[in-house]
């Protein structure tokens, strides 16, 4: 039976140390209030030892010129980590896709560029296969109660509804959807089950949900009430004395099919 997945999310920003630039692992709260954690590759190795199911690397400074640094992180991670790696942040062109894929990424997530030039999804899907195109959707609830997709790392609001955009993304050839609730990001108060469920019920491709995990029970809710195929978390795995193995055991106890390590 196919297992549900736990996916640590490694968010990175570029930092200048002396004259050199390197990527640093960070945690965010509502896409703001950045806290530095450490080295992304070292942290990825810890997640590998804890038998995470996949990893997502997100470059939060993607608009800046730090692409070499990011490719380095992906290449180093791929040398030592034998599980699927998704990379995202600032991917705009087919050449960006090719560059990251040839340096060890398995899947590429697109967000802002997919909204601005939706045919990027089709072209990438035709060129590399739907399985490596992850449509990343950041969204938040407006004062009127409606949900809207935000782009540019949560700085720019669009008129798109996240559920409609997920459906459109599937139609254009995305192979997976990565949902992130900006409102809940880093707050540890639980996933947005409502939007997760509505997306999961309206697309036939896998749905990864994220934003708000603070307890193992939140993962369980994401799978049961949210009907997600995978739950991703950054802050939860970075800070808490919780690791994927412990979380996995609690998910298993709730009767959800999940991979057990050894």
């Amino acid at each position, binding site marked *: *039976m*196919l*297992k*549900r*997945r736990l996916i640590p999310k490694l968010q990175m920003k570029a930092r200048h140390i002396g004259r050199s630039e390197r990527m640093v692992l960070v945690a965010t709260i509502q896409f703001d209030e950045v806290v530095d954690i450490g080295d992304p590759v070292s942290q990825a190795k810890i997640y*590998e030892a804890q*038998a995470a*199911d996949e990893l997502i690397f997100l470059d939060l400074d993607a608009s800046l010129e730090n692409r070499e640094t990011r490719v380095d992180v992906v*290449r180093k991670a*791929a*040398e*030592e980590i*034998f*599980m*699927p790696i998704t990379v995202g942040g600032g991917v705009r062109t087919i050449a960006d896709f090719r560059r990251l*894929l*040839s*340096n*060890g*990424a*398995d899947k590429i997530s697109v967000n802002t560029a997919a909204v601005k030039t939706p045919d990027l999804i089709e072209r990438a899907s*035709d*060129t*590399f*296969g*739907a*399985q*490596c195109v992850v449509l990343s959707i950041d969204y938040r609830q407006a004062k009127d109660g409606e949900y809207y997709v935000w782009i540019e790392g949560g700085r720019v609001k669009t008129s798109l509804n996240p559920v409609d955009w997920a459906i459109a993304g599937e139609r254009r050839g995305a*192979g*997976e959807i990565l949902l992130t609730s900006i409102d809940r990001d880093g707050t540890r108060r639980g996933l947005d089950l409502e939007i997760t469920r509505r997306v999961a019920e309206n697309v*036939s*491709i*896998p749905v990864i949900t994220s934003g708000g995990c603070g307890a193992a029970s939140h993962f369980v809710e994401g799978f049961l009430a949210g009907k997600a*195929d*995978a739950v991703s978390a950054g802050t939860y795995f970075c800070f808490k004395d919780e690791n994927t193995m412990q979380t996995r055991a609690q998910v298993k106890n709730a009767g959800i099919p999940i*991979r057990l390590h*050894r």
Partner: protein
Amino acid sequence: MIGIVDYGMGNLLSVYNALEMVGADVQLCPEPKQLQTVERIVLPGVGAFRDCMVNLKKKGFVEALEDAVLGKSKPILGICLGMQAMARRSFEGGEYQGLGWIDADVVRLQPNDSLRVPQIGWNDIIYQLDSPLFSSLPPAPDFYFVHSYYMKCHNEINVDATCDYGGLVTVAIRKGNIFATQFHPEKSQEYGLKILENFLQWNP
């Protein structure tokens, strides 16, 4: 020396890194003639079937592979699309001829319940207990999958492993010196590396 067929389809680096990890002497082979000097071959692949066959033909790999695998009986490991390429034909986006080494068709996953396509993630498999490629693995190990199509064998004897995805799906085949997996051993952590190790020691 183990050669990875480099024909422009997918993430060769991961396969390269994983083979090095288990101690192999690995060489990327962008030229078909390089297949003459290697002892073992890995045919990876991610993407669409049609492009895969077009690229293999365009770069002259079809004859080189036939010579090495069918002529000289070198052990070969196909991965994902590299496995599907070994079938007679595929129905992905039309009907296309494959290498034709295995009497099989590549067809779309049609799970009989509400499961999603593509199948993405970890699934447990049932393998032939006498298969040297699955030697020293526990029963029902999990492997990482990402695919929308799979190989439907006409000859049961070629099936080396299956998984359940809303019905029985062939996930590994073995025939003489040919072995292939639908899942990604290079992305399946410890168990995946074990399969690569077994392949390096395999003497069909």
